[in-house]
């Protein structure tokens, strides 16, 4: 779709009637409502249709109040200057786990609406998203949303914007997406403030900012054309994987996929090219003409690296092949999901799975259980530790059970994050205590106009994924917000904490912890396991050990009495059914050695509370 308003300026083309933008916001600040309004006001789609057609309609995201991804959509907008504009709206995932994808979506845009709740003000994700947008040189339009709320304080939020974002408070648009206030101003600001796309005419470069798998058509790549023209029928190359495909179809989102002849500079659309698997194309990759490749790919590509790993095993009654098939199918649509076979002495055959973060992990598990009806055992999440041996060899360890004995290890490193917490001042003490307990080092502390405090910490990623957010929420009555980014690997004094049941080590229950915390973690874990493991026919000793030395012990004492007293006047069926019911409860458990373990036991480490 070549725009009628393309202007040639030497080697550069300016698509003066196109604006590419995204919306970034802290969770619950109103991104989805504003998106709906923009589509409605530009008559792109009626409210009801949108629900069904555009938003990724998976229940899971709805339930969790997050929209992982919405399809891109082109809005037709006639501005106050009388011109017709093509506004390409690219959605971004709303969770820190998906920040690498966020940055690819941002890279496809020239501008971003930064939505801030007029009552809550700037939160941790506001800042994180703002910084991501700045890195991409985007024009930022602050939108103070929910001004209709009784607690709204737009003036205060303007001050915060000036202080923290170094943007004129006066540039902010006051809006209420819910009430339809300020929507026209927002659309006008997109046209006025966001620069039109510019690109070279010498070669073709298209940024793949997302990709979906369609069972009938293969991979559908979502592409923003940066330079040149990507026409249907041309052979193109993915510059990262260096694979060549023929573009069988290109098109735009209006809002459903509509075939076009070509995508031009500034256009946002899709490319279908007989690509069989999401693994064959990387989000962030650059498409160029195979016959006339661009001198270099677009900047900023980073391969997606899983940050969190856990073991997934079939529970009793589920075959490992069923789990493999489900993972294969799920991975078709989720290139960030990594999995490879592993085996555990306790759990048998299963898979070590890598995820972007905890939310990603939970979503994958729930999909496997719901969509594929699998009863699974998930082991405690771990990060990837780097181990250096005395002989200079190094190894990445994503499964605590595989950590070699400490005396063989010269050095261990673990991933660190920079975390940002924004909180009302009264919780600063509690947060400091919590975070120091999690080996966090305070890097910075700032005060906002309204008295709120921004705490910046550097801390190990493992400490964040193990329940930190829940602990933070509970200590701050839900007022604190959190965001974090991985900043690299640092040395750590780490040990393997082993759990023994009935005197036998259970590999699936082991974890890697800081030496200084190992004893208290061991105690907390044995206590929690005692709570979670039901009484059995015999005493079950639970022990925690470091390097073979027992540091904590609890016992689940044997079930003393469980017997049906009566004969029910010969109603034997009733008696048998009661036993069968009890047995079904037991069969949901995993037998490890002679001990029946409920699924939760394997995730006990996530349920220790504030330790």
């Amino acid at each position, binding site marked *: 779709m070549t725009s009628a308003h393309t202007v040639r300026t030497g080697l550069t083309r300016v698509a003066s009637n196109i604006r590419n933008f995204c919306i970034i916001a802290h969770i619950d600040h109103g991104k989805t409502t504003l998106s709906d309004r923009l589509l409605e006001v530009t008559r792109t789609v009626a409210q009801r249709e949108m629900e069904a057609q555009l938003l990724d309609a998976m229940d899971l995201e709805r339930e969790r109040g997050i929209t992982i991804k919405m399809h891109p959509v082109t809005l037709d907008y006639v501005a106050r200057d009388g011109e017709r504009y093509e506004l390409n709206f690219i959605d971004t995932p709303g969770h820190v786990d998906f920040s690498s994808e966020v940055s690819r979506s941002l890279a496809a845009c020239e501008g971003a609406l930064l939505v801030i709740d007029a009552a809550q003000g700037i939160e941790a994700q506001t800042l994180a998203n703002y910084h991501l947008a700045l890195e991409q040189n985007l024009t930022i339009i602050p939108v103070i949303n929910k001004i209709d709320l009784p607690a709204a304080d737009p003036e205060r939020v303007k001050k915060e914007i000036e202080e923290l974002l170094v943007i004129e408070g006066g540039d902010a648009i006051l809006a209420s997406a819910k009430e339809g206030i300020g929507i026209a101003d927002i659309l006008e600001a997109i046209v006025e403030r966001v620069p039109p796309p510019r690109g070279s005419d010498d070669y073709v470069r298209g940024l793949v900012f997302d990709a979906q798998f369609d069972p009938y058509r293969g991979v559908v790549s979502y592409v923003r054309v940066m330079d040149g023209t990507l026409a249907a029928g041309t052979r193109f190359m993915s510059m990262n994987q260096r694979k060549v495909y023929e573009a069988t179809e290109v098109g735009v989102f209006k809002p459903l996929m509509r075939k076009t002849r070509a995508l031009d500079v500034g256009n946002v659309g899709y490319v279908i090219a007989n690509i069989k698997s999401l693994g064959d194309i990387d989000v962030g990759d650059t498409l160029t003409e195979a016959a006339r490749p661009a001198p270099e790919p677009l900047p900023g590509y980073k391969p997606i690296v899983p940050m969190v790993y856990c073991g997934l095993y079939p529970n009793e009654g589920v075959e490992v092949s069923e789990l493999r098939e489900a993972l294969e199918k799920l991975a078709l649509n989720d290139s960030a999901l990594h999995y490879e076979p592993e085996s555990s002495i306790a759990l048998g055959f299963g898979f070590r799975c890598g995820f972007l973060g905890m939310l990603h992990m939970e979503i994958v598990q729930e999909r496997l259980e719901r969509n594929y009806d699998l009863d699974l055992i998930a082991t405690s999440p771990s990060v990837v530790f780097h181990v250096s041996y005395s002989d200079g060899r190094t190894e990445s360890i994503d499964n605590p059970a595989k950590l070699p004995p400490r005396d063989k290890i010269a050095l261990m490193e673990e991933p660190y994050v920079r975390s940002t917490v924004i909180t009302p001042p009264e919780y600063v003490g509690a947060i400091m205590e919590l975070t120091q307990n999690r080996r966090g080092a305070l890097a910075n502390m700032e005060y906002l106009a309204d008295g709120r405090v921004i705490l910046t910490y550097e801390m190990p990623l493992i400490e964040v994924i193990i329940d930190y957010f829940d602990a933070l929420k509970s200590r701050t009555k839900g007022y604190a917000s959190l965001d974090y980014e991985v900043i690299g690997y640092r040395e750590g004094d780490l040990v393997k904490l082993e759990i023994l049941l009935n005197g036998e080590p259970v590999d699936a229950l082991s974890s890697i912890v800081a030496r200084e915390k190992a004893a208290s973690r061991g105690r907390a874990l044995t206590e929690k396991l005692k709570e979670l493991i039901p009484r*059995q026919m015999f005493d079950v000793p639970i022990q925690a050990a470091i390097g073979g030395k027992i540091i904590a012990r609890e016992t689940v004492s044997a079930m*003393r009495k469980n*017997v049906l*007293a009566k004969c029910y*006047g010969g109603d034997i069926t009733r008696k048998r059914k009661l036993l069968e019911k009890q047995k079904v409860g037991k069969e949901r458990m995993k037998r490890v050695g002679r001990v029946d373990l409920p699924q939760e036991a394997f995730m006990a480490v996530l349920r220790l509370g504030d330790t």
Partner: protein
Amino acid sequence: MRRITDLSGEAAGVAAGGVYVHLPFCPYVCPYCDFAKWPLQRSRAQRYLRALEAEIAAAPPLQARTLFLGGGTPNTYAPATIAALVAQARERFGLPAAAEATVEMNPDPGLCTPEVFAAYAHAGITRVSLGVQSLVPEELAVLGRRHCAGDVTVAVERARRAGIGNISVDLIFAVPGQTVASWRRTLEAALALEPAHVSTYGLTIEENTPYAAWQARRPGDFIGSDAEAELYALGIDMLEAAGFEHYEISNFARPGARCAHNENYWRNGNYLGLGVGAASYLAGCRAVHTRDFETYCTALERSAAVPGDGERLEGAAQLGEAAMLALRTSEGVDVAAFKQRYGVNVLHRYAAVLTDLRAAGTLDVTPSHVRLTRRGRFIANDVCQAFVA
């Protein structure tokens, strides 16, 4: 007493087994009970009796080895009524003259007059089972029972005087408020009555009873499984010391005084249940009548089949039940008899399970028998589960 080993297929193709007759009326209703039962109403009681008589008349043929009148409270009915019912059943099912015939009784003195026992004895009742439950006044009150310890003594004397010496006493432990000391008092007082048979039932909270509502509201009032185990153990110790044989999880008998009717259940024998909510096991089919009074009576008034649930027991379910039932008894599973009857060697079929349970100290496995250990009796559900399908 005759040992019944196999009842499936006696003379001329007519199955032999136990006959159970359910009499659902009570002088008052106890808050823990969930059997099919109602407080006495004369007109309903009469209607029920007609329906029951019709069911006995239309029942499938069965050679009765034992007769058991349970409830409810059978002695709510007049003794002559019971005598007539026993006579009808005796004739219809050919119960031998000396065969065990039991009536469950509430020891309320008004319902246990000398005339009652005389009529029962005359009708050929050989055994009475008294719903004593406790001999401690506070516990009787908690259980909603209106008799007192003295009433039980009187009832026992009157039964003996009428010639019914085979007396069983039902007791309940784990009653809210019960202590080891109070349970000991009940057991001592029960032993002083010199019964031939004692049943000790751990209180079970059944859904939709007032006790279930109580437990939902104040779970702390109820005795936990550890304390319950202690009470159960005390019962076993005291009764065994007094010369009783602990022949089934909840049942204790003087030598020769086991309840043949109940033993037949545990041996997976045939039995015919008559009356509302009654259960039968005939020709490999388990069946249970509707528990709805109106539905039961109406069906028989229309000469229709009594509605209810049923299942044909086959394969693993049948084996599992047979094992589950046999394990409740002190004899346990007789490996050879089981093989002969079901064609399955228990030691092979359940090899893994047996190894496990033996290691856990709950089963005693010999080449000829599989039995619960003493420990196994306390957690028989966990053990038996391993056998059910």
